């Protein structure tokens, strides 16, 4: 069933009547995602152009529709509150698109919302191609298939997915985990889920400079994914130290977050690291051809 998301997942949209929220709601519906409604405080009882009902609170929406997933398009000062509200209403998976949430707000959220999976924040969302898309990704580049993908970046994901699709390698689930320092779901969390997913034959990990998530991922792969091929890519290998490049988390500071450390960790775990995205499909095919 891929991971985290399938065609039966019922999705609500927090911030459904805002400019971004409305635009992407329409695109998700066009993709085939089961959008069951949305929330904008004060606009409960109305409907958006697609006919989907709007509620005042997440609880009202969940009670009326049975939604299990949410996607959050609210501004940074209100995003943590939106996550707490989703948790309180019993949501099991929340995708948070918002960029610019204070790191301390996220520290509090991840310390308290046990049991609710959070994707992001500052992420493009996730998609199980041909089934459902909960995010802002361009749906047309994805193809249904058996490759899992995890990435800290949005547009670089599209680039890699496009290359995979054109090489005949469709995807089971693609997760954009987000570029912030404090995120809900990490590479390791996704790898743990892919490890036992019968619809995923191989996984592509697209990391970037900053932090130590990639090193943690490499250690996890070495121990827990002996039979599932993994290929990695690290964005920003030519980046200088001390410059923050777009993502709040993409910075090399001192000896942490360097591309050398990440490449070394993956190679030590037996994971080939592509020098450039265009090498990824070939590496995946090579790894799939090796008898397990």
């Amino acid at each position, binding site marked *: 069933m891929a991971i985290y998301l399938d065609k039966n997942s019922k999705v609500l949209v927090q911030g459904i009547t805002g400019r971004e929220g409305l635009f992407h709601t329409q695109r998700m519906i066009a993709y085939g995602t089961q959008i069951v409604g949305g929330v904008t405080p004060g606009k409960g009882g109305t409907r958006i152009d697609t006919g989907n009902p709007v509620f005042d609170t997440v609880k009202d929406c969940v009670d009326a529709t049975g939604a299990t997933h949410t996607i959050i398009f609210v501004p940074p000062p209100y995003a943590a509150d939106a996550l707490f509200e989703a948790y309180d209403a019993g949501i099991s998976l929340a995708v948070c698109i918002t960029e610019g949430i*204070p790191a301390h707000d996220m520290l*509090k959220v991840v310390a308290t919302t046990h049991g609710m999976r959070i994707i992001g924040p500052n992420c493009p969302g996730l998609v199980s191609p041909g089934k459902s898309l909960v995010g802002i990704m361009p749906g047309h580049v994805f193809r249904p298939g058996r490759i899992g993908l995890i990435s800290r*970046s949005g*547009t*670089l994901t*599209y*680039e890699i997915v496009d290359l995979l699709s054109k090489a005949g390698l469709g995807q089971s689930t693609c997760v954009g985990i987000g570029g912030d320092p404090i995120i809900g779901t990490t590479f390791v969390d996704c790898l743990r889920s892919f490890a036992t997913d019968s619809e995923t034959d191989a996984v592509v990990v697209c990391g970037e*400079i900053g*932090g130590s998530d990639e090193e943690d991922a490499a250690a996890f792969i070495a121990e827990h994914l002996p039979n599932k091929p993994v290929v990695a890519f690290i964005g*920003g290998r030519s980046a200088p130290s001390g410059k923050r490049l777009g993502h709040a988390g993409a910075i090399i500071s001192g000896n942490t977050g360097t591309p050398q450390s990440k490449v070394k960790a993956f190679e030590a775990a037996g994971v080939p690291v592509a020098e450039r995205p265009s090498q990824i499909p070939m590496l995946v095919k090579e790894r799939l051809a090796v008898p397990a």
Partner: protein
Amino acid sequence: MEYQGKELFRGVGIPTPRGVFVRSPDDVAAFIAENPGAWVLKSQVLMGGRGKAGGIKFASSPDEGRELARELIGKVLRNEQNPDGEEVKSLLVEEKVAIASEAYVSITIDRAAKKPVVIVTAQGGMDVEEVAAHDPDAISKYWIDAAIGFEPFIARRLAFAAKLPTGFQRAFPSILGGLYAMFMEYGANLVEINPLVLSEDGRVIASDAKVDLDDNGLYKHPELKAWKNEAPADEDQAAALATGLGISNYAKLDGNIGIIANGAGLGMGTMDAVRNAGGAAANFLDIGGGAQAELVKKSYNLVVGDPKVKAMFINIFGGITRGDQVAKGIVEALAGDDVRKVPLVVRLTGTNEKEGREILAGAGMNPVETMDEGARRAVELARG
């Protein structure tokens, strides 16, 4: 800066040395005249290593204080880590404390653990990363559960584990509690006391203060926005904001190939592609998601404004960003009379790709198909 951090320290009950913040040599003289004794003049700068760079002086009379302050204010401090240097605009005049022992304490965010981490060592006054590299056992850490918060046992445990001299132990829980309260209240990335001093007369005092605030959380404390204004502006960040980009969406680099991409990951990937093709990026520039033509045009002008740029590579994979808007921005930028033109390579795919290509074709431009090809072409063009 130090004096601002110490104001926050005093607000949460962390003792700091007696002293005064001044901006002129006469103020130093007047203060010492009223408060006779031995005083330290500390340059207020953001860079580290100011002592070795000559930014700290000692004075014991009003005239000496005035003389040394004249030397310091306006001076540009430099060292190996900060070759560009930083100008001294103000001083902190503080009592000269007789030091019995120095410790280090900080609280920062551990990304992997997703928790605040407290770091303590009895080797204060040194670069903590150096201590960690040479004597990792001398460093004690505790990860605080943000749902529980700080409790005094954490301070006791750390003080024993780090073998802080007994003189520290009584005051340490209240100092660490204050530091944690401040870390949480202001949403800091880092709060650091280095050194935390045990004086000959038995006081525990924060001799230096370092506070790094999260820009995303500043809206909660408008009174602290002045901190950022007073800090020496990073030229890249200022240029990014003036162009209408996010604060970290532009960074100047050392190469000669200008780069514009949509998304941070693709921007970094494009830099890498240029290096793989044997060239070097002159900058990182992420136009973000959903950029309109006007922003593309301004971004183009920002990149060619750097005289070392010999060629440019615009790499767009449209998701929310639409190809027609990007193409329109490029054509408009090139139509400007006074704009510097450099050889340009465009790669445009994704949302509204067809419309974008038509606009570019109308202006006589032919986009390349892939990122690798575009990088190769840009490197060739930069070589002339």
